[in-house]
């Protein structure tokens, strides 16, 4: 069965520090992978996605993620965190549903706190 694991429930970093959020997935075929961010009072927003090709993908707000098939991972990174990045981050895998579409399966999320 498809699943997504985000090992870190809560991470705290200092503003300006680098960030890496971990994501591991379980999927029988080449996965479609996504990172979403959820800020208080706002809906989930897509940061970036991987479908195929270059395994390093760039997203919005200076985020990037690297797909590593051998490790079944899709970790999210940012070289320098801003206070406004404090939010909850969700990794998701796109799975085929009975309707033939990409039903998203989400991890439990990682809550990021940023210290000034």
């Amino acid at each position: 069965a498809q699943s997504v694991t985000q090992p870190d429930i809560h991470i705290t970093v200092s503003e300006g520090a680098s960030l890496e959020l971990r994501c591991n997935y379980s999927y029988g075929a080449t996965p479609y992978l996504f990172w979403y961010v959820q800020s208080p009072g706002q809906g989930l927003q897509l940061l970036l996605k991987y479908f195929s090709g270059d395994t390093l993908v760039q997203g919005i707000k200076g985020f990037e993620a690297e797909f590593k098939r051998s490790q079944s991972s899709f970790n999210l990174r940012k070289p320098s965190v801003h206070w406004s990045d404090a939010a909850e981050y969700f990794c998701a895998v796109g799975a085929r549903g009975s309707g033939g579409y990409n039903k998203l399966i989400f991890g439990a999320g990682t809550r990021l706190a940023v210290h000034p």
Partner: protein
Amino acid sequence: GAGVSQTPSNKVTEKGKYVELRCDPISGHTALYWYRQSLGQGPEFLIYFQGTGAADDSGLPNDRFFAVRPEGSVSTLKIQRTERGDSAVYLCASSLQATNTGELFFGEGSRLTVL
């Protein structure tokens, strides 16, 4: 509207009552999804519509949950005989079409509290 709109934003009800949650997707989006997000968890798929029909309702937890989309735009999630375990944030999302982009646009959610 500019984004996915969900009403009400908050709903408090008593155990056993009936509840309706509404979703107004982005204009022109043919695909509409309902997810449920419990405290401390990621969103969990409930049901997906392509146009007016439910293409996949495999995530609905039991027959107390039902959703409709009669005109292919607005959708209503209906919960009968609510239970305390139904308390969660119900998220709606839409996409232009059911392609492999998986790019869903989410609303802010309806927070349901069952007392």
